[in-house]
């Protein structure tokens, strides 16, 4: 197992992934096949960071990361776009407390330029990347954007589902959210250290892939 070297420079190149797979295979084979392992102590993710050189990389929680939130987004989904200010706020408020947000763009047809343009318009900073082969989607059985999977650094599930309750279905929305599920789950985790594994049904646009 590689030793994480810090909060942000935690990604290693794909050739090192092979080593990771070999080492972890004895414990849990699915982690390498699917992209993210949930076995405590083995949280990692394989993706193509948007600001990188286009190569797949494997990331791990850094020493300061208490939780990692995989945020599945799509640039063409209006509901996903509507969540960006809330995600930005969460990152700014909870980031310093050890919650690391990864924006993952799994949809077919996404471009680096399109993603960067939308993130610039939303004023979003933080890490973002593609999900090659939609392996993270498959691993976490993600169905729509926006959908979040919040994991403790040891890989146990804190929360998964919607960001908040503003939408009950595509096109069925309230003027503003009345429940902020992701925020509540993360704040509870930060307060207690307990990963409760709560789930809600996410509402948004189906993950795009040509059949």
């Amino acid at each position, binding site marked *: 197992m590689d030793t994480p070297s810090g909060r942000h420079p935690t990604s290693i190149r794909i050739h090192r992934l092979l080593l990771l797979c070999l080492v972890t295979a004895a414990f849990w084979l699915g982690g390498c096949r699917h992209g993210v392992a949930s076995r405590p102590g083995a949280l990692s993710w394989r993706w193509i960071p948007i600001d990188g050189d286009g190569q797949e990389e494997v990331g791990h929680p850094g020493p300061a990361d208490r939780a990692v939130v995989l945020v599945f987004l799509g640039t063409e989904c209006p509901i996903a776009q*509507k969540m*960006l200010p809330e995600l930005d706020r969460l990152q700014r408020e909870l980031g310093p407390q050890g919650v690391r947000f990864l924006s993952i763009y799994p949809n077919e047809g996404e471009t680096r330029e399109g993603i960067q343009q939308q993130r610039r*318009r939303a004023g979003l900073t933080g890490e973002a990347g593609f999900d090659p082969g939609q392996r993270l989607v498959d691993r976490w059985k993600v169905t729509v954007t926006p959908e979040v999977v919040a994991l403790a650094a040891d890989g146990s599930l804190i929360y998964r589902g919607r960001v908040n309750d503003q939408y009950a279905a595509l096109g069925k929305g309230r003027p503003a959210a009345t429940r902020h599920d992701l925020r509540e789950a993360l704040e509870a985790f930060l307060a207690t250290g307990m990963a409760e594994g709560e789930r809600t049904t996410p509402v948004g646009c189906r993950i795009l892939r040509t059949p």
Partner: protein
Amino acid sequence: MSPRIAIGLVLGSLGLVMGRAAEPVTFHGQIQPLVFRHCAGCHRPGGAAPFPLLTFEDAAKRAKDLADVTARRYMPPWLPAPGPHPFVDERRMGDADIALFRQWADAGAPRGDPAAAPPTPTWPDGWLLGHPDLVVRLPQPYTVPAEGRDVYRNFVLPLDLPQARHVRAWELRPHSRAAHHAFLRVDTTGEGRRLDGKDPEPGFPGMDVPSVIQAPGGHFASWQPGAAPHQYPSGLAWTLRPGTDLVLQAHLQPTGVPEPFQPELGLYFTDQPPTQQPMKLGLGSVEIDVPPGQSNVVVRDEFTLPAEVDVLGVLPHTHYLGRRIEGTAIRPDGREEPLLVIPDWDFNWQGAYRFREPVRLPEGTRLRFALTFDNTTNNVRNPFSPPRRARYGPNTTDEMAELWVQLLPRTPEGRARLDRALLERIARDTVAYSRQRLRLDPNDGTAWINLGKALLSQRRLAEAETHFRKAVEVALDLDEGHYYLGLLHRIQNRPAEARTEFQRAIQLNPNHARARGNLGFVEAESGRLPEASVHLAEALRLDPKDVLALTLLGKIRLQQGDRAAARDLFRRALVLDPKNPDALEGMLAR
């Protein structure tokens, strides 16, 4: 028939059925023509929708979503249930077509034969009706914030028309995903520009605009994304006079990123002046009080037609708790006909509906409106969880219940009767509306004025005065309050006080044309003709259609010996009001 032949026929037809069922649904074969017809108006590059759907690549990766949203009838967005009176440009997709989307998705979204693809529609210049006669663009973009409550803002589109033009069609291109719906309004007074000038950003806020900013002559002039551009039938154009501004009342929704809003409006003119003007009946109530947890609270209203009419269109309006809307015509023989039924209202897709053929209704027909509120958690659009008591109010978290009906009386006598009946209703509604507003906010100056106006129309002068005084007391910068105090003092024959109030109104709003005109009258009645001339000329500059100011200034010019100027003023008055006795007399004067 022999058993063998019968079996053969059965098997043969079974084979036919099976053969047809097995015929694959493909993109180029069945789906693309449907997409072009029902979706491409918005789902095209540069269109109102968040992504295009023109090509196989666009559509195939969304095959399951397309099947879902069409099956739920979320897309294409069309709220009314099918009824006996179809609407223009109905975007309702048939059940058989919806089933094709499901079959295509289930089959793995096959492409089919590209050679079978229908021709891709084109949008020359982006305008659906071809290039407009006049394009007006909002001079400066307004930026809709990334999040927060919906924005209601009014944007002035100056026209600077050198001559009167008759509008036969118009199209709005918002160039922004934040644009949710809008109404086009006409301002002949410059009031919109004044309010715009008071606000540092483009436009001025509010769902309610001053009453001088009006819908164009009896039309709804409503816009929503994807709706077909407005085209008026022959004789029903509306006229724009020189000096008129258009005001776009826009409902803008935050999208998650700051959105610039700089719409373009295309106007299409005709040489044919309007021959008729529709009238609008407002059915509804401000007596709304929906307790939390109640799913079946119904608000009703009714109106009996005093004359035979053609119903041209309807415009429903409610907010997030309104669920079912019904507008029904009950003919004098008791037959009931739905005009509009919306089983599951969606605030986000509100708009006006125009009947494909006008609905002719005889005198004595009752128009009935019923709106059902659902203030439970089952209503997923409920702004509050747990639900809270909802009452009437202009904010989207308050509630409203309205159905506007656009009527065209069949005869001049019928028009006069309808006009009287509508005025009575408006007076009644204004009182109810103002009382409701004052319950919510006792410092609502406009509500005090509206109640005062209702009392004034009943000649209850002392009570009216109390209300107008209250208005200027609670809202110090309310020019209308001073204007109505001035008017009241004119009626009470208190010229000095009237003069002071009109001057105060003009001080607060230099574009207040009616205050200028009335000040001219006060000065003329006091024998101060030069002062009167100045105020009347200014009133006419602000509102060239003020017939009273035209005739009075004409009389003053006659007295001053300027016959040419007087005749010109009387002529202008007669163009607007051909039977005006003062103008006729003035023209004959020697």
